[in-house]
């Protein structure tokens, strides 16, 4: 669980990789590295490396297709990461409210003393 989350965030912290992952998500038929390279600003070789990182983070799977490898987005790892994120977000909302409450209490107490 922990490893999945940190792999996913590390994989998606790179904007090029995030863009490739989004393209994969939108295509039910997946893409080969060559297809992705057609409208990318980086080389096919760079794209292959990015796809490997996405695969390691379990954000993509691949199937061999003749001489090419076709990549598909998987959503399970991303879903795990977004649950992690949602849990943390709720915890921080609670903490921020507690901090504000603490300051409000001590300033009103001081006001009463004056």
């Amino acid at each position, binding site marked *: *669980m922990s490893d999945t989350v*940190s*792999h996913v965030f590390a994989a998606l912290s790179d904007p090029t990789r995030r863009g490739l992952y989004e393209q994969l998500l939108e295509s039910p038929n997946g893409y080969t590295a060559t297809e992705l390279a057609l409208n990318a600003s980086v080389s096919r070789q760079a794209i292959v490396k990015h796809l490997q990182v996405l695969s390691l983070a379990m954000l993509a799977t691949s199937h061999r297709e003749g001489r090419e490898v076709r990549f598909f987005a998987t959503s399970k790892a991303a879903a795990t990461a977004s649950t992690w994120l949602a849990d943390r977000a709720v915890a921080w909302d609670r903490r921020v409210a507690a*901090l504000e409450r603490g300051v409000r209490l*001590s300033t009103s107490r001081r006001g009463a003393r004056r």
Partner: protein
Amino acid sequence: MTDIIHRELELSCSPSEAWEHVLNPTWLGDDGELPMTPGAEGWVRDEDGVHYLIVEEVDENERYVYRWATFDDAPSRVEIELLPMGDRTRISISESPLDVRAQASLGFQ
């Protein structure tokens, strides 16, 4: 790596007062200990259990940075910054997961 969670708020007190509130662990959880020395270990207990933490940076009235983890959750780094805004203080909080290499060197896992 970019922040994953970011929160900003303004407190109606000076940075030095805000600093005292920030260093009082009861807002982070039910109970805990936030040391003032970089490298020192502390903890915060909340409904998720005990978060063990290691202080990374202490810049009085300005900045407090630590990394923390529970036994079953990925370690992350929390940065809390205080910025004076007239007679108020802006607090900026960010939490980002540590990458896998950093985890190995932490001794967490």
